[in-house]
């Protein structure tokens, strides 16, 4: 029987259509995987169901009751629960008290909790394997136990529909197995489960059905196998047939001491392993792509190179260690990172943003550099006096890259430049990168989850998965050798 029915769901943020007419049905005792790359709108769908965001149009129906436009506390009381990927538990309370919180009624008059609350909270803690830490504070727990606590809170609400955001992010394989069992437990209890994740592979063993999204729309639906075989899905994830123009590694002159050498670098964020023993190197003049899904560790790797996060292992630049250098001195040494969030000065004009980038250059040198950049990105020339905030997403991305190039970097690090951009913009950006590669001796390290964008320019490709490098090679061998792991 259909439990949750979503029909024609639309969400617009200003001009951006994040979700465009998504419909699906979910039965009790069924697990549906909602997958899509970054920016595909899958998380927005989850928020729309939970009432965290209000839909622009469409219907969300739970057992015959229309819930679209309800605030989230009403949706929750109607029987929808959510397991957040990142939550902020009550740090001054124990695990038991955190679970008890989820058992409390939304009443202003409950000054003393009912006695059954304590017993029930202990039962739930036992069922997810938290009994041994029940009196500890969340801050002292390992990451997996924090995730268990989030599951426990969801169970406490006894929801008919459970939404789980990236169920396995940051977990070890053994923990993934335990969590899969717990999520199957939801199904066995007759609950409807919606798993939101980046790719089919991570949830394939668990789901009954998969719905794949791309750019706000449904592109495929069916069993995990069917979706993985689907042509559109393969094109989105693997980039279909791509023309590559890789130069063999032996053609670079600095074969012995690469320009950048990252040696067994590991990063811990609190308890989550963000990078584990990563080895990569980049030659002078080379274009290297690091491909990986959201959360694989790309940004962490770049931040480690730029000196923004503490790490173990060694990073060498032209043969000398970067360890202990400040981010500013690393940047002055020629490593310039274009961050994922763009981070322009939004209330300055295009020209002012560029001038700030070229601040350290002599006036004449800056003028030359600016001319060259306007040649590379003609659109910016015509937009010089426009306020950066009012540019489109693609233009902003070009401006960010141009601003970084004003600093005359030796190594340009681009972190996920395609995030949230429409396909037509991708093409413009792609052309600009190609021109950059062909007309200048610049070295580029590109982090991407959009394979279509990452492969054509690359000389070499690394695949980063769950904090580790799992494959490296030339781009033309990617689909055959690493593609299946990427779906």
């Amino acid at each position, binding site marked *: 029987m259909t439990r949750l029915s979503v029909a024609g769901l639309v969400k617009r943020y200003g001009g951006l259509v994040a979700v465009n007419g998504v419909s699906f049905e979910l039965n009790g005792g069924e697990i549906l995987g909602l997958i899509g790359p970054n920016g595909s709108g899958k998380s927005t769908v989850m928020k729309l169901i939970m009432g965290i965001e209000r839909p622009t149009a469409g219907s969300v129906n739970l057992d015959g009751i229309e819930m679209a436009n309800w605030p989230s506390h009403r949706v929750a009381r109607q029987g929808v629960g959510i397991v957040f990927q990142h939550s*902020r538990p009550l740090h001054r309370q124990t695990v038991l008290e955190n679970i008890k919180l989820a058992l409390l009624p939304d009443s202003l008059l409950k000054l003393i909790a009912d006695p059954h609350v304590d017993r029930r909270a202990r039962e739930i803690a036992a069922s997810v394997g938290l009994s041994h830490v029940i009196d500890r504070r969340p801050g002292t727990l390992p990451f997996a136990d924090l995730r268990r606590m989030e599951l426990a809170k969801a169970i406490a609400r006894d929801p008919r529909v459970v939404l789980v955001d990236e169920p396995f992010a940051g977990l070890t394989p053994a923990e993934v197995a335990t969590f899969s069992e717990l999520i199957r437990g939801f199904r066995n209890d007759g609950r409807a489960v919606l798993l939101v994740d980046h790719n089919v592979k991570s949830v394939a063993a668990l789901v009954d059905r998969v719905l794949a999204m791309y750019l706000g729309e449904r592109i495929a639906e069916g069993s995990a196998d069917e979706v993985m075989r689907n042509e559109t899905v393969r094109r989105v994830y693997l980039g279909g047939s791509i023309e590559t123009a890789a130069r063999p590694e032996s053609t670079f002159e600095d074969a012995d001491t690469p320009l950048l050498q990252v040696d067994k670098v590991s990063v811990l964020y609190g308890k989550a392993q963000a990078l584990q023993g990563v080895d990569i190197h980049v030659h002078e003049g080379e274009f290297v792509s690091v491909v990986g899904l959201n959360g694989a560790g790309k940004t962490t790797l770049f931040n480690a190179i730029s000196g923004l996060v503490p790490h173990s292992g060694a990073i060498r630049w032209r043969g000398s260690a970067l360890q202990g250098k400040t981010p500013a001195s690393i940047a002055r040494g020629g490593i310039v990172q274009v961050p994922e969030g763009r981070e322009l000065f939004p209330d300055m004009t295009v020209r002012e943003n560029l001038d700030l980038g070229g601040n350290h250059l002599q006036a004449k040198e800056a003028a030359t550099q600016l001319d060259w950049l306007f040649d590379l990105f003609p659109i910016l020339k015509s937009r010089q006096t426009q306020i950066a905030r009012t540019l489109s997403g693609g233009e902003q991305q070009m401006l960010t890259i141009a601003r970084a190039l004003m600093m005359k970097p030796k190594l340009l690090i681009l972190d996920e430049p395609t995030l949230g951009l429409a396909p037509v913009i991708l093409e413009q950006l792609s052309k600009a990168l190609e021109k950059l590669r062909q007309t200048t001796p610049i070295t580029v390290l590109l982090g991407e989850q959009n394979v279509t964008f990452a492969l054509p320019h690359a000389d070499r490709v690394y695949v980063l998965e769950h904090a580790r490098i799992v494959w490296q090679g030339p781009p033309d061998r990617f689909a055959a050798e690493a593609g299946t792991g990427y779906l």
Partner: protein
Amino acid sequence: MRNIFRSRLFWIALIGSIVALLLPLKVSGYILGLLTVAYYFGVFSMAWDLLFGFAGEVNFGPTFLIGLGAYTAGILNGYGVPVYPCIAAGAVMAVIGGVVLALPALRLRGPYFGLTTLVAVLIMMNLIVVFAGFTGGEIGLTVPDVLSVDTDTNYYIALIFMIVSGIILYALSRSPVGLILQASGQDPIEAGALGFNVTKHKLTAFVISAFFSGLAGALLVFYMGTASVGTLVSISVGVQVIIAAVLGGRRTIIGAAIGAIFLIAAGEALRPFGELSTFIVSAIALIVILVVPSGLLGILIRGEEHA
């Protein structure tokens, strides 16, 4: 309940209260007078801590609520209304004013709630000056009646009021409602997804905070016999209330009272330093906030939380 006798906080509060109850046997009327004011400030700070420490909302204008209570009570008394109805009216008015302010302000995110409360104080200060005929304007409002002419009686009224308020606010903060309030303050999205109406809980916290602020403000007027912008409403009074709560230890309720008493006692003890005394008190406050973010009470009960 059985845990309460093992809690260091309970014994600190109990011993402190007994010492305070016995003080009139020992110390001069002058000091009792100072402490009387300190106790009312203690209630201001505790009420503020409920909102900041638990609901996570920074109210930069605690004096808006205090002033509403104080001026409502004082003005009504000028028209011949007896003292106790005036005090009740003051508390009610603070609650009404609090709701009128909080309903739109709580819809705002981030720092805008705090800014709204700050603007409310500025508007109130202006209105008091503009309607000087009713409010006494810049000179201040003189009220005909007082709570009592006896120093000891005034002292005990303030002390017992502070103890009772402290017990109520502390119990509330430790109740299931307090737990929901903390969750709403820390992660409103998750609190909503757990089925809690975040706005309702925060509004309730604001109402309770307003009630105690208004009540304490009204009582203070009938202790001092006057109300003026400088002593009850100005921004610097509000800052003192906030510093007391943070200094004493945020999210502890009781710490806020300790902080308020400490500030007034320290100001007095350092009086021989003249102009420097304010500077020294501020410097101590700054050092405590920087070095021990959990505040004075945090130092006293350190270690217990991790036991």
